[in-house]
């Protein structure tokens, strides 16, 4: 029962946040807050995202490259790395980074505000916490997640190319041309949509876990932990579902 109620509450928060998205552009203060959240979401996570995606691309290139070499088909290395990055790995690794860096921070921040009565204070001042707190954070995630996913894809491909050139004897230019020749508009689109869904999911889960915080500091810790776990699970499940939906 509690689980179902929690999902219901999260759904209400998600819907309430999404329908309030336009309010972010109404005042100078909310625009400023939104751009601040864009910075926190996109730029603060950039170092982590860069390292994660670089190594993702490198590992994939190495693993796939060694197999391809057995058949003298290294020319397809770029294509193999690109296709798995753009469809799956880029949105996925970017989603995990955002869930652990940004989602957890949102859950902790809102959780702390909740136990400090700041959320109640906003309500008493007739300020919707969803509009004031959730909208700029979730919207920033929705905007930044696809951009970061594409950034992951680019960095991962470069990483793969470097491994290909240095360890597998695949020319970097050839790697890139193979990568570009395989990429399809649909793959890019599906990858970006996936990242968008991940961004929205991470935001909604983090906000609802944060706003649902109870029992002081312990509660904040638990909300943060739960938001990360739930987000990881949902990223995996939604990732599969979208792939299933788009590639039959």
């Amino acid at each position: 029962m509690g689980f179902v109620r929690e999902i219901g509450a999260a759904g209400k928060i998600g819907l309430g946040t999404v329908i309030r998205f336009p309010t972010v552009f109404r005042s100078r203060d909310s625009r400023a807050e939104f751009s601040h959240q864009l910075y926190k979401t996109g730029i603060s996570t950039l170092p982590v995202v860069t390292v994660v995606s670089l190594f993702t691309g490198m590992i994939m290139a190495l693993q796939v490259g060694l197999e391809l070499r057995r058949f003298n088909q290294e020319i397809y290395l770029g294509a193999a790395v690109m296709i798995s990055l753009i469809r799956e790995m880029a949105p996925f690794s970017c989603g995990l980074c955002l869930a652990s860096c940004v989602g957890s921070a949102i859950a902790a921040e809102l959780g702390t505000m909740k136990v400090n009565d700041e959320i109640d204070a906003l309500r008493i001042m007739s300020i919707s916490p969803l509009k004031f707190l959730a909208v700029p954070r979730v919207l920033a995630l929705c905007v930044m997640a696809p951009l970061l996913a594409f950034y992951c894809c680019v960095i991962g491909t470069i990483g793969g190319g470097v491994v290909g050139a240095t360890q597998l004897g695949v020319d970097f230019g050839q790697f890139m041309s193979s990568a570009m020749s395989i990429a399809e508009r649909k793959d890019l689109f599906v990858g970006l949509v996936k990242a968008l869904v991940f961004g929205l999911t991470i935001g909604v889960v983090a906000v609802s876990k944060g706003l649902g915080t109870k029992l002081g500091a312990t509660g904040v810790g638990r909300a943060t932990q739960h938001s990360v776990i739930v987000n990881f699970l949902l990223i995996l499940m939604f990732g599969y579902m979208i792939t299933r939906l788009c590639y039959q």
Partner: protein
Amino acid sequence: MSRSKASGFSDLVTGVFMLSVLALLGYFTIVISGIDLITGKEKVDVRVVFDQVGGLKDHDNVMYRGTKVGTVDRIVLGDREVTVIMNIDKDVILREGYTIRVQSMSLLGGNLMVLEEGEGLVLDLLSTDFKGQTPTDWMKDVQDITANLNKITSSGEIEATISNLKSATEKVNNVIAKVESGEGTVGKLIQDDSVYEDLKVTVANAREVTDEFKGVRTVIENVTQITEKLKDDKYYDELEKGLTAFRTAFEHLDMGEDLKASANEVVVKANDLLGTLNNVAARLEQGEGTLGKLATDDTMYNEINALIRDMRQVIDNYRDTTPISTFGSLATGAL
């Protein structure tokens, strides 16, 4: 207010990041949409209709003169055919007699579309519905050939065909050999111009006998016809073509040694026949033999014609006058 200064900087960084990623995204979208920004080449969609495409997939490469000029954009399944829409450089030239085929890339799979230019008039890439060659399925071809050969050999069809052909060729050869050696009427006419000389004498003498003249005239007409036919290249060419096709067909079929030997024999004999006919025709043209002379020398024909005209007159006169006077005038008129 240090916060606003800091937020100004963070906004700048965020903006720079977002714009660069968006620009990259835009570039990437354009590149994978098939517009080559680096070389600036414009691409066009070209339709090729195939019976089947042998495993060709979207985004397989399209090769032209050994270089990649584009990719397969999409494959549309039709009623009885498959239409491949390929996105290729605008500069590609296809002419009448072009070929478009699907070629496998490696043992692991993967396919290419290969375009060959052709030699006729340049075709418009956009408005032409190109026809692709059905990809060679070697396994299927080998199976078909084996099955057909089995059918033919087991039913004895091929043996019958070959033996019929053999006997037909032998007969023709015999006839021609006889003609060459001067046997029979035609043979003599060709071989020996004494008949011509005789004929001349006969014509001179024949003014006495009407019936004989009539017979000679018929012979002459027939011979002319035969000669004309022999002179006509068409018959010779057709025969030669048939033989060449026959020989090629047999060379490509892998059959038993016996069959092959028989077939070869037929071909050799048929070739001999052709050669002989050729010789005969050549000799006729050069005016050798009686037929040759008849064919090339029209004075004889004219003389005979005049003879017949005179004969008619003689016969008419003969009815009115005495036989002796008739014979006398006939002799003086002819000489």
